[in-house]
């Protein structure tokens, strides 16, 4: 599947654990297509030559149809299409189900750039640095229109939708520099909205983290907003006497709402409760919380969500190697980390360029 030296590339690089699943499905469908196309094309050409008009206005044979053939060529495509459906569904399930132990990265799209923040605080624009062999989960939203975070080398993409969080996950398998595209049309500079995903050995990634300005982590930033800038703490902290609902240890749990319904506390619910607090009120509380719509940016919202999650003990530190302490016991990850690789340059490690075309 290597395409480095070919004149015209046929497949993009395979750089994630799921890439070969998608490629296998692709090859399966190509084989089915060929298996259908060849007999039909051969038949059309054979009939066209063999049964061409021999005598002016001579009629063809009196054949009207065949139930057996109709049943056969209805049943066969149905069975084959079901194999395609099932194969696709299995691959898709893996693509859209982020593992629990993934390293968390926050992404906000805006016309026409990708703003990325790591759990450790580092920010990037139109670039994403990730370590090889770690599962990475992106929590994404947008400040304006629809965008789509697409990395062909990982064979994955997801729309980024205003007013919602969408998720994307992957586990890079190969250090390198890979295209990042915006794949959902977003206006004037749509084709310029993109950059690169840099996959690095864990040690290089740790160096990269250490070498870039980190500032506040999302959780710290969220706490700052919560306690000082937005004043959430005046109602939502202080123990049994507090006026607002309790936020500790609620994430992932079902809570009862006024009116008898229940809701699972997730990112989306936290976000909605900040922007539209009257919509889903926890049982036993009055609808007195003001909306914060217009006062918080999408990035601040992500930080608040991260902080409120941390009150329930939900955190996923970004650094591997030395600080993987949350029980991320992934055999592959450990091995890759300990081996490491010399000479992989985090700034230009594209295997496309580095291997065969050094002067490009």
């Amino acid at each position, binding site marked *: 599947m290597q395409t480095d030296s070919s004149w*015209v590339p*046929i497949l993009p690089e395979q750089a994630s654990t799921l890439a070969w699943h998608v490629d296998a499905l692709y090859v399966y469908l190509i084989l089915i297509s060929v298996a259908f196309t060849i007999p039909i094309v051969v038949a059309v050409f054979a*009939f066209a030559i063999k049964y061409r008009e021999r005598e002016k206005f001579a009629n063809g044979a009196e054949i009207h149809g065949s139930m057996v053939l109709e049943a056969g060529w209805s049943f066969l495509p149905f069975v084959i299409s079901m194999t395609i459906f099932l194969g696709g*569904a299995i691959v898709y399930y893996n693509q859209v189900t982020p593992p629990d132990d993934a390293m968390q990265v926050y992404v906000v799209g805006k016309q026409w750039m990708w703003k990325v923040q790591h759990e450790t605080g580092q920010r990037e624009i139109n670039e994403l640095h990730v370590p090889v062999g770690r599962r990475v989960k992106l929590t994404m939203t947008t400040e304006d229109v629809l965008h789509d975070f697409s990395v062909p080398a990982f064979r994955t993409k997801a729309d980024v939708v205003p007013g919602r969080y969408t998720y994307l996950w992957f586990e890079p398998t190969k250090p390198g520099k890979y295209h990042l595209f915006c794949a959902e*049309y977003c206006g004037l500079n749509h084709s310029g909205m993109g950059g690169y995903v840099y996959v690095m050995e864990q040690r290089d990634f740790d160096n990269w983290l250490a070498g870039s300005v980190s500032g506040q982590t999302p959780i710290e930033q969220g706490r700052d907003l919560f306690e000082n800038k937005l004043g959430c703490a005046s109602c939502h902290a202080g123990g049994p006497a507090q006026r607002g609902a309790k936020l500790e240890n609620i994430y992932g749990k079902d809570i009862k709402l006024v009116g008898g319904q229940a809701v699972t506390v997730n990112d989306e619910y936290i976000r909605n409760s900040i922007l539209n607090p009257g919509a889903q009120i926890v049982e036993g509380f009055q609808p007195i919380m003001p909306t914060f719509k217009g006062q918080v940016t999408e990035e601040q919202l992500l930080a608040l969500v991260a902080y409120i999650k941390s009150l329930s003990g939900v955190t996923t530190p970004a650094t591997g190697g030395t600080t993987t302490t949350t029980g991320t016991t992934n055999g592959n990850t450990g091995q890759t980390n300990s081996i490491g690789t010399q000479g992989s340059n985090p700034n230009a490690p594209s295997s496309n360029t580095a291997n065969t075309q050094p002067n490009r």
Partner: protein
Amino acid sequence: MQTQDGIIAEQSGIPKQNYLTNGTTLKSWLLTKDHKRIAIMYLITVSLFFMAGGIYASAIRLELLTPPSDLLESGTYNKVFTQHGILMIFFFLIPSIPAVLGNFLLPIMIGAKDLALPRINLLSLYIYWIGGALTVWALLQGGVDTGWTFYTPYSTTFSNTYVMAVGLGIFINGFSSILTGLNFIVTVHTMRAPGMTWFRLPLFVWAQYATSLVMILGTPVIAITILLLAIERFAQVGIFDPSIGGDPILFQHLFWFYSHPAVYIMILPGMGVISELISNFSRKKIFGYEFIAFSSIAIAVFGFLVWGHHMFVSGQSIYAGLVFSFLTMVVAVPSAIKMFNWTATMYKGSILFETPMLYAIGFLGLFLIGGLTGLFLGSMGLVVHLTDTYFVVAHFHYVMVGGQVIAYLGGIHYWWPKMTGRMYSEFWGKISAMLVFIGFNLTFFPQFILGYLGMPRRYASYPEEMQVLNIFSTAGASVLGVGLIMPVVYLTQSLIAGKPAGDNPWMFPGLEWRTSSPPPTENFEVTPVVTWEAYEFSDENGLDIDEARRRQAVTTV
């Protein structure tokens, strides 16, 4: 030469007046109730829109010759691909076969004097003109850059282009589709000639009937969607824009609830044309008539249940995705049934290689690829990687151009002698059919590979390693362009210098070949009584083949 013309005149018994000579003033055209004249006016308008859309397509391919956006800056490029899509889909593909060929042929094929509602037919032409004129005006004022899909909130809140004017143009145009569909359904139910039972209808009529169902049921939804868009844009009511309480995904559901069935509005009539061509030019009854007829209806029905396959990465739930993927796979079955039946029809036929049949054979190959790549895009695991890339662009061009446009061209060539009474140059017809086939494949096959490499659609600039395939594509587009311009020249030339065609140049059994060419205003001098099955090539079809052979021998001496 004179004797030849004389013989053909005698053979066809050209009446003193046909629909073209019955009134020559502009008024007699603009106020006509004759479905054939309305069809001719549609033909001219649709061709102009096709040319305009083609000019935009050329601009796209020229820009993509090089990786950076140099020929067109990205703002212009965005308008160019948007307008290419809008003109081609709403003003060419959707009306082309139904409004031109369907209008002309449907009444003749069932032995009727006209459509059931001739004034409504004229009204739908005027509505089409008004919608088209408004759209063209908006494009000349500055155009629109939202993509033909008008996704919110870009189209409602962020785009500063003529979104609402173009939206209104499409809104108005939709009523033309609805009225035409309604007219066809009423006509097929009430106007069939004596003996013309449902299962004696040509498959072209079945396909038009299925298309009309989709038009009537689907088009109102796009009208409602555009209306909601206008309400949000002007009255600031939150429907699609999340910042005022709306949901952008709701727009996608509504949009695709129409626009996916619209794909079948575009391809079903093409399938109807191909059934006619394959059966007649094989001089053999079509294989599995009922299966082809009912597969059209099945496609029309299932077409309404698969819209969510456009939204696999939009944030729709995994369970919704599973259902839509499953139903999408089911739609593959009726399409496959048609494909196999067409191929089987050629078996033991007596195949005539005229220009229309070349188009039909080209259709089989291109639609096969278009349909099979649809399976790639219906398979959820693959579509995550492929959606919004050039793979999708290539797929729908294989279906829309390789399927619908090829079928339309085949149909125009097939019925040209009937519509005009003249024969075009068979030599240039064949050359053009082959250029279109080669040019088309060279243009769009490389785009499948580009798509799998990850080249996103709607990109004015792209990474350098993708240039070679884009050069192939642009080169192919040039060949395709030449192939498409040629018919304009030789068909126009045939109007002046073409040989008279005769009523039934190929001795086919359909009703349209049993009236004069061009037909009289009332289509038939006496109402026909149908005693033969569809595609009846046996001696029971009432055609005097021996007499035709004798005349053929005389004319070719």
